[in-house]
């Protein structure tokens, strides 16, 4: 039972990271209808910027993170304005490939500026608490906490702020939103900025979880896709639930399936989320919480 509970905690923490990454994908998809592959790069840059501000510049960690968020928000807006704005109305294919191009550029910029492997000087360390046989590390605690805060922020923003309302309107019908005097262009910019900010949190948590910040983070970020698909691409709540479900599935696969099914191969847990994702897409293409009519035949 301890094993199960410990795995559940580990899976939830992993899932929270997936959820944070997936949220960044979702917020852009929700308003622009685009899967932004460059978000993997945002996660990577977010972690490295935080490293840069906190370790290289020796600023307090929280200040460093806030500065990284500001930097990423500005960068995301600039990219949206310079590149993505020009692609409004183009087929999904075109936009996806452009974001993949951006991802490649961002990765190389990162590698040209920073080392491929750095340690984040994070404040939570490796301290841990034990609750009746279940160990909870501070990193995991904060990961879940941050995910919760970010999601709460999302809901408050969407529900109560003028821009949140505008974004919801734009997501439902861009033309109608335009007719009501909502600047769709600004909605796009804001959604990108939000993605940039969330990416910093995701990047830091991903780096803290995997022992170091390294240049494979952008790749790890792509592992959040199954979470996003499971949750239904345009639902922040779905991203959270999807993230946790996928995280727990992955960890439970390692704990219970892999030892009993060696034929599935070493490290099957890392592809399990994709197997689940494909099954979901085939069986219920809108995901668990998705509302947008999925492009199906």
């Amino acid at each position, binding site marked *: 039972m301890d*094993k199960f509970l*410990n*795995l559940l905690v*580990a*899976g939830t923490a*992993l899932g929270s990271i997936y959820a944070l990454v997936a949220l960044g994908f979702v917020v852009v998809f929700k308003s622009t209808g685009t899967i932004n592959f460059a978000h993997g790069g945002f996660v990577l840059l977010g972690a490295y910027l935080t490293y840069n501000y906190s370790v290289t510049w020796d600023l307090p960690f929280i200040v460093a993170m806030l500065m990284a968020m500001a930097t990423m928000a500005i960068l995301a807006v600039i990219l949206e304005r310079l590149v993505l704005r020009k692609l409004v109305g183009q087929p999904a294919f075109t936009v996806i490939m452009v974001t993949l191009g951006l991802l490649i550029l961002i990765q190389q910029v990162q*590698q040209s500026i920073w*080392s*491929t*492997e*750095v*340690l*984040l*000087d*994070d404040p*939570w*360390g*490796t301290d*841990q608490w*034990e609750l009746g*046989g279940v*160990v*909870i*590390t501070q*990193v*995991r605690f904060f990961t879940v906490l941050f995910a919760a805060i970010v999601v709460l922020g999302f809901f408050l923003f969407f529900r109560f702020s003028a821009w949140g309302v505008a974004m919801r309107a734009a997501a439902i019908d861009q033309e109608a939103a335009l007719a009501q005097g909502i600047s769709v262009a600004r909605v796009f910019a804001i959604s990108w900025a939000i993605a940039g900010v969330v990416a910093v949190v995701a990047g830091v948590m991903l780096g803290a*979880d*995997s*022992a*170091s910040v*390294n*240049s*494979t983070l952008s790749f*790890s970020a792509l592992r959040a896709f199954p979470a996003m698909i499971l949750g239904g691409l345009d639902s922040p709540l779905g991203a959270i639930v999807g993230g946790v479900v996928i995280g727990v599935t*992955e*960890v439970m*696969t*390692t*704990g219970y399936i*892999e*030892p009993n099914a060696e034929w599935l191969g*070493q*490290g099957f*847990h*890392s592809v399990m989320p994709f197997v689940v994702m494909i099954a979901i897409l085939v069986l219920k293409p809108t995901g668990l919480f998705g509302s947008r009519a999925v492009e199906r035949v």
Partner: protein
Amino acid sequence: MNQHVHHPARTRRLVRLVAGLLALGLVAAACGDDDDDATTPATGETTAPSGDTTAATTAGPGDTTTSGDSTESTEPPPDATTTVPAPVGDPEEVDGFDGETITVGAVLDQTGPLAFVGTDLLVGAQTYWDFVNEELGGIAGKYKVEIKVADSKNEAPVAVQAYQQIKGDVVMFTNILGTPVTKAMAEFLVEDNILAIPGSLAGEWVRNPNFLPYSAPYEIEMINGVEFWQTNLEGAGQTACTFAQNDSYGESGLTGLEFAAEKYGFEFAADTTYNSGDTDFTAQVTELADAGCEVVFSVSTPREQTGLMTGARSLGFEPVFIGTLPSFLSLLAGGDNGAAFANFYLVGDGGEFGDPEIPGMKNFLDRVEKYGDGAAPSTFLLTGYTATLAAHAALEKAVALGDLSHEGLVNAVQQLGEVDFEGLAGNYTYGPPDERVPPIESAIFRFDPAKTDRNLLALQEVVESPFAKEYVFAG
């Protein structure tokens, strides 16, 4: 092995590359080992490639530069190690040698996740050649050495293509990064009969005539690791387990572990593996914890080892970990991760990184300062540097034999006796592949957060398992 010459006991040169090599850890790279054991068998003579300047400048091919103590050959070396030929004229111009400059090849990660390792290895190698070129006048005092670099991008197929592209421009390959890359290149090196220093300490290179390995192989490291656990940690009767990378590197360590288990009479309660690049080790931790493991022998690389141990700690599982040289990287054990390393031991080679008592280490630090273009001496740099010592010995021998061709170098190694790594790695006795004697002593280091950033390991013990020399490397 024809005859064993017993050295007088030497002072321990624990100059283990430790830290450096661990760096390689990332890549399961190769590294040096020690040689201090008092019983290093030697077939031939000891060549000190980098030795002191004077010795090197006069170094003829086979001449015996004893390092420190007396390494004498009681008899002429057997068959292959024919008598030292009379110095011949200048070597002919061949691939990689234009009459003035000798070009050696490096196939390393210049980009990708391990670029920082590849870069440092290269700077280490370059530092050593700069020293040879500037202070010794080059190989045999006259031939400058240049490195030709190809990017392996962390992909074995890319490395093979890189190899194909530059093999005609180099006399040998001196710097390779990683067991998988080395393994992929092996077939082609053999086919082309080109010599290379393996980017891996796997025992399978020991008997391969196209390789010039150095340091104690992973198999030996793990046998000595078991010895340390049984003797120094009083591990008899405890539950032992393994954690190994799912490739040829992991296999070589496991081979040593299985050998040791049989000799010491125990069985592993759980064997776990992982794929390079994995980030979540919950499964392995759970399996190890469920099996009640008290000691885990790791044949791993630093990122994954760190992930395993932080993951284990977060599940309240904190056994003793004993890792191979590549399993540790100071960088990753720094800061907050350190807590997870409390019970970590590394089986390595040489002495503590940066210890100026070790002659090779002092030379290394001085030379990095002089030729390193501002590079900070790192463990990776040291690894690249140490490997180059072996290359230097081989090139000197080949020039002395008057043949820098690919075959000439392979042949030169067959006639190379014991090579002294100045304490950066154990002395290695080359000669015909069947007769090679790798170092069989290991240094055990313990994680020590009080150490500096570049070296978080403190020397704990030097061990040599009584079974280490019984281990037979496959031919």
